[in-house]
């Protein structure tokens, strides 16, 4: 009925409005919506008609659809493969794929392996059978500490403030060893390299703390894209859940982490919702068999003028070139990075909307 000969594949940019509309219509007719963080679509055409598509958002494939009449052919496989090759050309070799649990079998045939499944709603898959296992094996081999009470913190530190330092100090006091993960995604005002260095230097005086570079398994765009789309002020609960289940199922057991620390969040709705989700997905004994991770919310501190310290407040002050306010909110170890940063950059509006934990 259908001939492969007429098939052509192309990659299109979602900035092109007309093209994006065409894909959006195609997805709608196949019962799917279009996600805003998708940068490219790989589409298959038969003559001029769109017959399949797969969206690429950084290291994640999603919004994948195949026209009804083509579903029993190998077109799905082909379009996934073309998307994988395109992602590799973009420099992303380790890919995630988001789908619903009933499609897992089909994508399994495309070389993707299930990582985390959330009820009947979503499954996160990756394009290697050993990715998370290797990552956890490395964590275990190099960083596992034999202590009864091990804690963990995940932070973006954009930039690293006295509030972050306080959180680390309090958490370190409350446990025998503390693992701090710095979110690896480079979508924030400060580069990952700078954020990682700021945390490392800020926590240098604490002897029972390990600072880890984040991985794609910890609040990366793959596991938690909503976190990076704050302007919407909507957390996609599914993504938060996936990120947290991944932490509880893989990372916490690898390092024997029993509790996770987080600052209270009075301002940002996304982070506040994330904190609520943490209590549910990490602590609830009834939802999964993996050991629970206790969540400790530590009250946020204020500066000497009674202003709550937050990375976003620091960025706002930086934007106004108000170095006095900045100095009140960050440890001395952070200042050189801010000064260097100020001399190199000017704030743009979009920077201010980015993640600030």
């Amino acid at each position, binding site marked *: 009925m259908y001939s492969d000969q007429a098939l052509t594949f192309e990659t299109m940019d979602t900035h092109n409005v007309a093209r994006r509309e065409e894909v959006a219509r195609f997805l709608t007719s196949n019962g799917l919506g279009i996600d805003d963080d998708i940068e490219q679509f790989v589409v298959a055409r038969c003559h001029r008609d769109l017959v399949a598509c797969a969206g690429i958002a950084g290291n994640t494939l999603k919004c994948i659809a195949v026209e009804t009449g083509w579903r029993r052919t190998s077109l799905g496989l082909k379009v*996934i493969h073309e998307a994988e090759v395109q992602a590799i050309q973009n420099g992303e070799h380790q890919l995630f794929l988001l789908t619903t649990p009933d499609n897992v079998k089909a994508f399994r*045939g495309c*070389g993707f392996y299930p990582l985390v499944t959330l009820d009947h709603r979503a499954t996160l898959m990756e394009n290697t059978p050993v990715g998370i296992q290797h990552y956890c094996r490395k964590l275990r081999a190099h960083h596992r500490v034999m202590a009864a009470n091990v804690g963990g913190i995940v932070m973006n530190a954009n930039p690293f403030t006295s509030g972050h330092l306080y959180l680390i100090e309090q958490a370190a006091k409350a446990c025998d060893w503390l693992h701090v993960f710095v979110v690896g995604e480079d979508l924030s005002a400060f580069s990952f390299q700078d954020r990682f260095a700021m945390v490392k230097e800020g926590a240098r005086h604490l002897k029972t703390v390990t600072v880890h570079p984040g991985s794609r398994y910890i609040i990366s765009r793959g596991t938690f894209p909503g976190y990076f789309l704050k302007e919407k002020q909507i957390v996609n609960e599914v993504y938060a859940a996936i990120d947290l289940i991944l932490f509880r199922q893989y990372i916490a057991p690898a390092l024997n982490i029993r509790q996770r620390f987080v600052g209270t969040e009075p301002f940002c709705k996304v982070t506040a919702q994330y904190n609520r989700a943490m209590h549910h997905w990490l602590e609830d004994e009834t939802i999964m068999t993996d050991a629970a991770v206790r969540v400790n919310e530590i009250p946020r501190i204020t500066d000497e003028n009674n202003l709550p310290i937050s990375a976003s407040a620091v960025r706002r002050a930086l934007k106004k070139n108000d170095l006095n306010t900045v100095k009140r909110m960050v440890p001395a170890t952070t200042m050189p990075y801010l000064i260097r940063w100020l001399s190199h950059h000017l704030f743009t509006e979009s920077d201010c909307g980015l993640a600030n934990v």
Partner: protein
Amino acid sequence: MKIVKAAIAGTLESSDLVVKVSPGDEGLDIIIHSEVYKQFGEQITAVVKETLSAFDITQGEIIVEDKGALDCVIRARVQAAILRGTASETIAWEKL
């Protein structure tokens, strides 16, 4: 020789295979998935290992996703992935 960058070769069409290679820090790590592993697993493993050793590959992660390919196809895909992953300037054709 070491795999120095991630590379991919092949397709997931029936009778073909995909070989993904990437740098690894703990020796050679070979992972093979095949639809016909029960019948031909040993043979596929032997062909992959042979091809790797012909190129003297001692370090890297090799993932094979086989869809029932013939030995010559397996060899060709593994070779292509290695050549891409080792970024070899000069190809030792006599080994191929």
